[in-house]
């Protein structure tokens, strides 16, 4: 990523990308591949976390962040489905299993630590979710699109923070 302005670094400190999914199930690992790419590029003031699933203890990791971006695969997308970036709001929904949703995690952070960062989720359409450690061509292309979108998002966030 292009290095952001130094003066904005402190204002963008505390950005966290969380990619989640099962990398053994083909395109389900797309979100994690995205954060691997971000990690390898060592973006300033951006930390990454790659996990199999979202669990309640991650709420503590969100609490002191200014921006959190979740990255997840989209299973069974329509043929025209594209990478999407959507805002995430805290959702006090019941935990259906050991899994949490991004909204649930935000709500946990808000309720337990009285701090909820601004958050977004990037969804990456996939194609093949069979046993496989590789991404399909469609998911690979979408990870690149997601990477570009993430980069723009961080730059915009920095500008907004300066303003």
């Amino acid at each position, binding site marked *: 990523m292009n290095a952001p302005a130094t003066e904005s670094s402190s204002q963008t400190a505390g950005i966290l990308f969380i990619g989640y999914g*099962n990398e*053994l199930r083909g395109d389900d690992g797309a979100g994690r591949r995205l954060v691997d790419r971000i990690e390898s590029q060592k973006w300033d003031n951006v930390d990454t976390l790659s996990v*199999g699933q979202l669990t*309640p203890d991650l709420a503590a990791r969100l609490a002191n962040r200014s921006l959190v971006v979740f990255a997840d695969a989209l299973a069974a997308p329509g043929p025209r489905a594209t990478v999407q970036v959507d805002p995430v709001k805290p959702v006090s929904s*019941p*935990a259906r*299993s050991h*899994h949490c949703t991004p909204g649930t995690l935000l709500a*946990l952070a808000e309720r*337990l630590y009285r701090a909820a960062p601004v958050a977004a989720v990037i969804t990456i359409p996939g194609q093949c979710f069979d046993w496989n450690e590789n991404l399909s061509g469609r998911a690979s292309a979408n990870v690149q699109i997601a990477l570009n979108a993430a980069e723009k998002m961080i730059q915009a966030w920095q500008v907004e923070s300066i303003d």
Partner: protein
Amino acid sequence: MSSESNAGNARPGRTVTIDPVTRLEGHAKITLHLDNEGRVADARFHITEFRGFEKFCEGRPLWEMPGITARICGICPVSHLLASAKAGDRILAVAIPRSAEKLRRLMNLGQILQSHALSFFHLSAPDLLLGMDSDPASRNVFGLMNAEPELARSGIRLRQFGQEIIEALGGNKIHPSWAVPGGVREPLNSEAGERLKARLPEALETVNGALDLFRKIASRFEEEANALGDFPSLFMGLVAEDGSWEHYDGKIRFVDADGTVVGDGLDPGDYRSFIGEATENWSYLKFPYYKPRGYPDGIYRVGPLARLNICERMGTPRADEAWAEFRKNGGGRPVSSSFHYHHARLVEMLAAVERIGILLDDPELVSEPFRAEAGINRLTGVGVSEAPRGTLFHDYTVDRHGILQKVNLIIATGQNNLAMNRTVLQAAQHYIRGSTIPEGLLNRIEAGVRAFDPCLSCSTHAFGQMPMRVALFGPEGERLDERTRD
């Protein structure tokens, strides 16, 4: 939340489906088969996700297996990591260094602690503290935070502590490929050791507080304790050579409902001689059973309840006291109600915290070497460890280059499959009367399954989320209605 077809009315001669069962790992559904009088005649706990992980592993190098299998599940990766590394130890035919064994034990204790903390504080505590008849809209972790904010917070911190142990050792807390055939890659650095030690008092206080709380509320659930899976069965798990609680090594012991040891000193590597695996056409999950008693009479339970029923002591002072108190629930026999899995988890968390403290003070933890080097010396190997949910077997066959030819995993949740079905049937028969099913009763049936804290991702290797399906069948098996929610 659970859902029940036909607007809460269980009509005679029909099937009520609860799908999915909530607050479990993975997804499942329950079907209740009613007779013409509206009584529950049969109940089935279905697992609908396809599995194929064993086939996927064929052709992989043995050395990659701990890292691969650890990625089956985001909740209990360490369990697979250790069982896989132990299968590798057998194939290399090495005795791993003592320091490596202790480091592996430390990681497994961190795993048990974090997993039990999630199960108790976030999935089961809403039922236990808010009440099974409380408003389902708030009978969840958020309702718990309103009612008991400090408990919810301390539960999260306890899970974090377990995760920190895993992270301090493995470097990557979720899927560490740190344990390898022959030992471990790295020891615990002293700075991390001191940091973990500093957190022990808080962890101990949290577990003691949870035990106190459970003592206070247990009497409210006498009916549930009698109706949620209280039946005779065998119990299986690892025990140490001196008969104490074991979580990493040791021999297999089976104890029956009267407390008689029916199988002891069994080599986990010979599991095929005492465990059979039956299949049913309505579930992808196999049905393991104790071979000498046949199927389904060889029903056995694994996990915290079983481990506390088969051992003679916990092996640490506070946990020994808590164990003795727990065993009073059985009145001199093994504790038979699945409801007491909750209590058993708390006792195990106490044992884990105490043992973590002992290990962190052990100078051998940093004594080299940490890994035994060897080539392929055997073509088969079985690794076993106690996962939070019960005994886990990894059985590998390799060629002379160490390439996997055959893989069989026997997962704790699978071993509890027969018992979960029995639990659902008993709970349904106890609570469902006539044609109306209040939500609180449905929740109790689900709670019967939740007591086992089943990990369906592990047992079926699922991905993502599945939609909820609610189906209603007529007496001839015809589908009368179906609802779906994402």
